[in-house]
């Protein structure tokens, strides 16, 4: 019997995967050739076996494969079958590129067939990736990037005290640590101070610092023009010189290049300008835009300018903040041990109560440590939003995969491998994710501009915002990960079609497993959305409570300002007191002004000074038992102007002068703390051992001096006439227009002294709002993310139910034909949706409870497990979900049984 040549040839050529029709022709022709050879051999007298062997020998199959492969198939197709044939010198990378290029083109074509699908998916991804990129760029700027100083990782802040309470150093202590430490290449001290600039048009009050001469060289930032302080600028008796900020230079001197060497008058004293810092330079305090830095008079930054006190021997009054640079390869731990050793030596030499010493913290941590929890929580929330977006797109892809089920089945039947199909679908997903990433990047660029433009100073370093390679890498990685996350499941599902059922005529829907996956995704989306929504709910709740806090003053119609009595002519107390008395009288005489408060500090700003209080006849057992109080010097109408209620006794009067007996007013908290069951009036206290005891004459309600969110602390008030300070704040209560009041105030100040500057003019309501700016920012972003999460989850529910209704059209038609009412059908669909939503909510509640500790730090007056918030948010989600279910349900009730039954 003749061998089956067709079969033999087909087996040998199967690897070529030729197009079917072509394969038939070639196989037949080769078979004929073999048969002819075989028959010739038989005719020549060979046996059948010999003839067959001869025919087979005449064929070199390997050569035929190669030659046919070359003759029949285009290059790219051949190259994909790498194990089959490839010229030895053909670069592997080029093969991969050609394959990838083909997949990309195919993917793009396939996506373009469904523009609405891709628009929805890309929009969803753009929002998710964009929000993540925007928050990451904030995190990157604030937390990840090194501070803008030379080798910033070596910079540390040094504080007095063993523990974390940040105390300041006295000059003598600073000099001891500077001389004795082994860990730092340099240590610099500074103190912030206001200066009044005169002799240059209108007097102006400047935010400045007095710094030790090595301050700028320690930070490693050179001047833009002129030069920074040199070592000789720090010697005792060196002439006063100043370095100014770039912005101040532009604004005050119009950016003129000849300012170096110019003489300025600061606080009535001549100062030579030696340098201008580069644009964007910030010293160590990020929240204040410093305008000027001065060198010290006496080696260390001065306490009071031109004071005759010998600063170098001052050991018990601290006012210096300190920064230092670690030696190369030095660690924080080693430096801390070193400082502890110095502290122990100093303790022997100059014994002090326990708790003194020094501790260090990296400058980066000090600068941004406070906002880290806020930013990380925002990043967490926004990544949940991205997960929801991914779930949504996965669901869309699954729906699309269902539609493409037959396409995949046909491709599989034609011999496409599973990996090939997975790869193709993944390329499509990545293409979409890439588009989403590009959209997200645009969104991030836009929000970055918005954030910079917002000028928010409460979050440090935002002025440095910029999208750098790290943010770009983040976006890229996010996009790829996103593409893999939402692409993998649908791709794997699509690549394993059940050929038999898929290829049957008319079958259009995918397997049930895919619907279950989509439903699971909706449950996950609802759960994630609930977590973000609860976070936002808790923050809203906190914010509302913060706004409801009784601040102890009335911020409405209250104009505040700052005046510095820093000029030479006010060096004596009596001159300051005279000025304040006269200013008070003049301002109160302005028509429309109700009351005028003058003091050293205003509420909410948290800039006040503090001291420890001693009580007559109650000696403290140890220094730790002394009561720490906030100290304020005020004029008689201070509380009137603020709108603070007097609870007991009296306020100060014009008779409480330097010659009169010392008197104090205390706040409620201090009264409760010291005399919980006694009348505090008539008790005698003092904070300075050298002063006589003073009598408590009044108790006022608690005023939130340090911020609305902080618990009230003890505060002590003293008449300005008994303790005059150089830095004044004014608070004018008047129903008149802010501008008119300000103009009047400025006029009166000028009439009294034309060289005084009024600065920081703001309405008290603004000050309060500013103190809440970070919280408002967090709330706004969180709210935005929560809204986005809710929207995405709603779209997810809607999408799944709509798809379910259209897939079940036939079933619904039968139900209606069998007598189900529209109400039954509607209820069934809504029920199906609600089941998913409720499962999601249950899961989300568990998640929210598990994550509650993370958000605790951002809350005020609300427990992270506040049941009301949880219930309200869950109800909101159910309500919104009901609407999302109702629309497809309505569509289901409109199914015409006749049309439905005919449709498939």
């Amino acid at each position, binding site marked *: 019997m003749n061998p089956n040549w067709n079969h033999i040839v087909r087996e040998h050529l199967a690897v070529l995967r030729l197009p079917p029709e072509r394969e038939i*022709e*070639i196989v*037949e*022709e*080769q078979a*004929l*050739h073999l048969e*002819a*050879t075989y028959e010739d051999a038989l005719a020549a007298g060979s046996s059948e076996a010999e003839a067959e062997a001869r025919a087979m020998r*005449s*064929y*070199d*199959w390997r*050569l*035929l494969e190669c*030659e*046919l492969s*070359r*003759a*029949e198939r285009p290059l790219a197709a051949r190259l994909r079958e790498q194990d089959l044939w490839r010229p030895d010198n053909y670069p592997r990378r080029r093969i991969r590129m050609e394959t990838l290029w083909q997949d990309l083109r195919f993917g793009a074509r396939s996506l373009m067939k469904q523009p609405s699908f891709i628009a929805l998916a890309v929009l969803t991804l753009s929002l998710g990736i964009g929000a993540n990129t925007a928050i990451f760029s904030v995190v990157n700027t604030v937390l990840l990037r090194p501070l803008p100083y030379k080798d910033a990782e070596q910079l540390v802040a040094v504080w007095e005290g063993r523990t974390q309470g940040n105390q300041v150093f006295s000059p003598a202590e600073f000099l001891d640590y500077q001389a004795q430490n082994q860990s730092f290449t340099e240590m610099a001290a500074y103190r912030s101070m206001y200066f009044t600039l005169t002799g240059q048009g209108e007097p102006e009050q400047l935010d400045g610092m007095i710094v030790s001469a090595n301050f700028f060289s320690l930070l490693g930032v050179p001047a833009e023009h002129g030069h920074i302080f040199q070592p000789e600028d720090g010697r005792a008796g060196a002439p006063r010189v100043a370095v100014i900020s770039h912005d101040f230079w532009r604004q005050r001197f119009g950016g003129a290049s000849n300012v170096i060497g110019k003489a300025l008058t600061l606080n009535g004293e001549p100062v030579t300008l030696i340098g201008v810092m580069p644009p964007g330079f910030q010293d160590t305090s990020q929240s204040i835009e410093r305008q000027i830095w001065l060198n010290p008079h006496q080696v260390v930054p001065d306490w009071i300018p031109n004071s005759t006190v010998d600063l170098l021997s001052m050991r018990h009054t601290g006012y210096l903040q300190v920064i230092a640079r670690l030696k190369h390869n030095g660690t924080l731990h080693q430096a801390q041990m070193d400082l502890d050793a110095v502290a122990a030596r100093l303790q022997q030499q100059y014994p002090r109560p326990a708790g003194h010493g020094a501790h260090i913290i990296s400058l980066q941590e000090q600068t941004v440590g406070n906002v880290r929890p806020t930013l990380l929580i925002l990043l967490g929330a926004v990544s949940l939003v991205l997960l929801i977006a991914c779930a949504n797109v996965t669901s869309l892809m699954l729906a699309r995969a269902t539609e493409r089920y037959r396409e995949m089945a046909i491709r599989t039947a034609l011999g496409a491998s599973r990996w090939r199909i997975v790869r193709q679908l993944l390329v499509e997903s990545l293409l979409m994710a890439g588009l989403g990433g590009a959209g997200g990047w645009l969104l991030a660029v836009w929000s970055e501009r918005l954030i910079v433009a917002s000028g928010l100073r409460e979050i440090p370093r935002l002025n440095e915002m910029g999208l750098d390679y790290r943010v770009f890498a983040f976006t890229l990685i996010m996009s790829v990960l996103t593409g893999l996350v939402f692409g993998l499941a649908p791709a794997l599902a699509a690549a394993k079609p059940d050929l038999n059922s898929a290829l049957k005529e008319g079958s259009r829907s995918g397997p049930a497993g895919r619907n279950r996956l989509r439903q699971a995704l909706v449950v996950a989306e609802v759960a994630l959305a609930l977590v973000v929504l609860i976070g936002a709910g808790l923050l809203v709740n906190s914010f509302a409570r913060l706004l409801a806090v009784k601040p102890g003053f009335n911020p409405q119609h209250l104009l505040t300002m700052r005046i510095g009595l820093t000029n030479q002519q006010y060096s004596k107390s009596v001159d300051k007191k005279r000025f304040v008395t006269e200013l008070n009288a003049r301002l109160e005489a302005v028509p429309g002004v109700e009351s005028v408060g003058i003091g050293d500090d205003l509420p909410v700003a948290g800039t006040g000074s503090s001291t420890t209080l001693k009580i007559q006849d109650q000696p403290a057992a140890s220094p730790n038992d002394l009561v720490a109080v906030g100290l304020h010097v005020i004029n008689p109408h201070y509380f009137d102007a603020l709108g603070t209620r007097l609870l007991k006794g009296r306020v100060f009067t014009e008779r409480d002068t330097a010659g009169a007996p010392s008197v104090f007013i205390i706040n409620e908290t201090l009264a409760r703390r010291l005399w919980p069951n006694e009348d505090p009036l008539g008790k005698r206290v003092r904070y300075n051992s050298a002063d006589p005891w003073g009598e408590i004459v009044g108790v006022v309600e608690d005023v939130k001096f340090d911020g609305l969110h902080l618990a009230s602390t003890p505060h002590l008030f003293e008449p300005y006439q008994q303790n005059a300070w150089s830095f004044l704040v004014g608070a004018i209560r008047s129903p008149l227009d802010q501008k008119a009041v300000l103009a009047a105030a400025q006029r009166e100040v000028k009439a009294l002294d034309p060289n005084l500057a009024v600065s920081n003019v703001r309405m008290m309501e603004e000050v309060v709002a500013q103190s809440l700016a970070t919280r408002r920012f967090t709330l706004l972003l969180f709210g935005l993310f929560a809204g986005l999460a809710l929207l995405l989850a709603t779209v997810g529910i809607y999408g799944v139910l709509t798809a379910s209704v259209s897939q079940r059209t036939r079933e619904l038609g039968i139900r209606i034909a069998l007598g189900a009412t529209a109400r039954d059908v509607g209820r069934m669909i809504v029920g199906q949706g609600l089941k998913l939503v409720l499962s999601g909510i249950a899961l989300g509640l568990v998640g929210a409870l598990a994550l509650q500790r993370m958000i605790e730090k951002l809350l005020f007056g609300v427990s992270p497990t506040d049941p009301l918030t949880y219930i309200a948010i869950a109800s909101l989600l159910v309500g919104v979900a009901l609407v999302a279910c109702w629309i497809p349900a309505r569509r289901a009730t409109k199914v015409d049984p006749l049309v439905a039954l005919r449709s498939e």
Partner: protein
Amino acid sequence: MLDKEVKRGSTEMLILALVEDRPRHGYEIAKLIEERSDGVLQFHPASLYPLLYRMEKRGLIKGTWIEKAGQRRRRYYKLMPEGKKALNEQRQTWSDFFAALDRVAKINPA
């Protein structure tokens, strides 16, 4: 380089020449080449058929399935005008080539 070109050119010319007077199928072409060259030129089917397909793609020849009475259908290749032109050119080239060889090395068998 010349070797490869010459070899391919010569095989193509042989095939074109064999189908010049009438269409022939692949086996017949292989047989004829072997017979007419007294076994000096042997054509491996693994090279022959792919070459035929390529020549067909270039429009030199055209294959057609023809069923003759009492026989299985076979694929016959006939010369196309494009092939005729190529054959003439190649004949000329080879003739020039041999003339040159002869002039130099006296190898003309005639």
